[in-house]
């Protein structure tokens, strides 16, 4: 559930969505499935919170949406990464890597002198 998600993970949610969409246009359900698989279902994020995040990213212009037929020919909303979204993904990924590396380094550091 959203409440149980650690605060630190909420910012990473956007990053995961962008990453998912970097593989090509997909609808919300596909994004959710990708995140589920890619993180080994470790992020216990309520699927419902995915959608406000998607819409906010759309509002910011990082992704665009279009309606099209789903694989079972239903009316589905497909999201596509935009140019700015792709650039944003690169920036966020680099940031995250730096942050995570620093965290790991800190956690592995020896005792204070």
């Amino acid at each position, binding site marked *: 559930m959203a409440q149980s998600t650690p605060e630190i993970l909420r910012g990473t949610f956007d990053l995961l969505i962008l990453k998912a969409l970097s593989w090509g246009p997909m609808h*919300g*359900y596909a994004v959710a499935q990708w995140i589920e698989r890619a993180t080994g279902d470790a992020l216990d994020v309520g699927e*419902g919170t995915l959608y*406000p995040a998607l819409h906010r990213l759309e*509002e910011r212009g990082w992704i665009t949406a279009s309606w099209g037929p789903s694989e079972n020919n239903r009316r*589905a909303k497909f999201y596509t990464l935009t140019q700015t979204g792709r650039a944003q993904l690169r920036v966020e990924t680099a940031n995250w890597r730096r942050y995570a590396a620093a965290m790991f380094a800190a956690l592995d550091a020896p005792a204070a002198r």
Partner: protein
Amino acid sequence: MAWKRWSPFRRPLGPDPAGDVEDELSFHVEMRVRDLIKQGESPERARQLALQRFGDYETSRTECVEIDERRTRQMARSEWFAELRQDLSYAVRTLRRTPGFTAVAVASLALGIGATSAIFSVVHGVLLEALPYPAAERLYEVRTVYPDGTEYPLSAPDFMSIREGNRAFERVEAFSTGTFTLLGDPEPKEVRGASVSDGLFEMLGLGMAVGRGFRPEEHQPGQGAVSVLGHDFWRREFGGDPAVIGRTLTVGGDPYTVIGVLAPGAELPQAADMFTAITYDSAFSASNEAARRGEFLQVFGRARPATDATTLNSDMRRVGTTLQASFPRTNERLTFSATSLRDIIVGDVRTPLLMLLGAVIFVLLVACANVANLLMARASARQDELAVRAALGAGRGRLVRQLLTEAVVLSIVGAVVGLFVAYWGTRALVAAQPADIPRLDEIGVNGTVVLFTFAVAIITGLAFGVLPAMGSTGTALMGAIREGGRGGSGAGGHRVRSGLVVAEMALAVVLLTGSGLLIRSFIELTRVNPGFQPERAVSFRMTMQGDRYQNGAAIRGQVAAVLDRMRALPGVTATAATTLLPLSGRGALVDFAVGNEPPPPGVNAEIGFASITPDYFKAVGTPLIRGRTFTAADDTGAPLVVVINRAGAQQWFPGRDPIGQRAVASGAEREIVGVVADVLQRNPGAAPLAQMYAPLAQRTSRSARIIVRTAGDPLALAGSIRAEVHALDPNLPVAELNPLGQLLTKSMARPRFYTSLLSLFAGVALALAGIGIFGVLSYSVAQRAREIGIRMALGAGAGGVVRMIVSRAMILASIGLGIGIALAIGLGRVLRSQLFGVSVFDPATLGGVVLVLIASAALASWLPARRAAAVDPASVLREH
């Protein structure tokens, strides 16, 4: 938007964020249910699990809807602006493609809008803007009202009675004005002085630039030898030098110490150069009886908040009634009135200025009709373009918007150019200084005027744009392509255009009639016999004050000496002194009674009183009708004699000979020895009122006007006149040395100003209406070239074709004339107060208007008719 490509998934009724979100979220849940079922869950269990995994469905949904709605609104807004930008750039491009059309349209609008803004800035500056005083809307002037309705300033005791006895005013203040001689290098000067009551500066919010104002003790008798200078006067005479404070100036023979200078722009309702303090001597006592009928104070009051003019006036009448009871000898039947300061300052220019504003709005309407006409002609030529755009998917609303944008762009460009017209126009108006229209120097193109101009531009743009836009995007749109792109706007469009031309004509007729009537009354005014000969004479003023002129004899001696010297100048044929020039009022007003007879019923018992030297009537050129004028024998010791004017003779001696009659006037019995012609007193339009003249020897005045009549150019003598007066007394200023004719010119300045402006507007309207007729006919000739060709091929002569076109112009002009004259007569009421000696139905004027309009319609149709006659039947027929 991108999803438009998937037409089966497109929402046909526009964006629906709530529905979309619902679809999206339920799609997710259903997909999950389907997958769970695939994994072997029962449908009910699968649904339960799916919802559980989804979490708080409702919160997600509302959040998404909120985000999407915000985004939709934003997109609509930016789309609107994008379309506007598109329309604007399209409009600019279209207008630049047809520079001729654009120039004519912009010029018409600039003229109309510019003239409207110029007149509006005058109306705004003169009528609308607040007077430069705090709580100016509550300022009133109090006047004494005599039983015949005439109004005068107040006496000192009456002022004090009002100050103490009123209930409706917060405070009551006063000033008196006079002309004084200021001694100084190199020449003595006349200065306009004002004595002010103790709180006047404060009530009017007049601050000091340098020094201080009057202290309460300086209003006590014997303490008032201090003076405050006006700002302009200080700049002009003392170069703005602050060291003037403490200097002593000799004014009217008395020394005054300068204590302060008023702030820039600080002025009394009546301009003055120097200010002194009113000293509250015994005359300024509410119980004084003797001084009650010496009326010299201009009294102003600030009403208590939320007190209207009616309340103020009834309060003034109440005070008047009290004084009638207390002072029956002096105040019998006298009362007081309160008139708002604004009415006093701008009262008599309000009607003519509003009339001019109305006239200029008519010009603007004509300009609008004209541009609408041009736009319609162009729109019908653009049918192809519009039809193509419609075929490519532009809705009618979009096309109308496009055309309106073009119209508004036109009118805004017109407004920008018009602002220049207004700027120069107002400058020219102010420079022309038309007959002391009050507050004129305060006007100019300011923020309000600019705002007004652009509001007018947008309104006019929409007004003249809407007809062509609706017309050309309507049914004609569908027809255009079918007609093979020949672009006929059809009979409907033509009727509208003819209607516009008729409207233009009608408006032009109204303005022509108005200006015609004003021109006629102006001519009537110039025909009025002024009662004097304004040519080849000058006048100047001498104000004799100070030690040299302690008594009447000294003053009379000086006047006689000056007249002697004037008479000796080369070419001088007559010279005289007077206290009153023509067209300068009636002088002092005094009671006049014949013998012991009671005044005839219904007759105003007052007569204007002036003092003159014997040659006055000869010098000013006023003919003697009966009896004699004065001689040197009518001296100080001789029996009192007077000459009256014809109006006075008719008033008091109808059917009788006034010569030899005795009348009591100004407290003494006098014998009437002569009757002279009426001389204009205020302006040529005002009927002459009773006037009486006494020998200066028997009624002396410190201020005298000297008239010098010459055989040649009188102004050539100006230098010698000054030199001669200077030789007699170097401390005596020669003021207002002007040709006598200037009095007449000045009195005609306002009518001349209104007449020329209205004529200018009428001319512009006529020209625009002419262009309108020309445009409609040219267009119709171009449209009917084929028909004309066929007619000519069938044997119609060129003359017949010309007749056909010209008669069409005549029909339009006649309808316009009919409507316009009816309108003009209806509006004549507005003009009546400005007319003199001519009726609103003046046949000469109406006839002239008809002729002018028919002539200009004929002129406007001439070129199109010629073009029609030049149509070559063969080529026209081959073409089709």
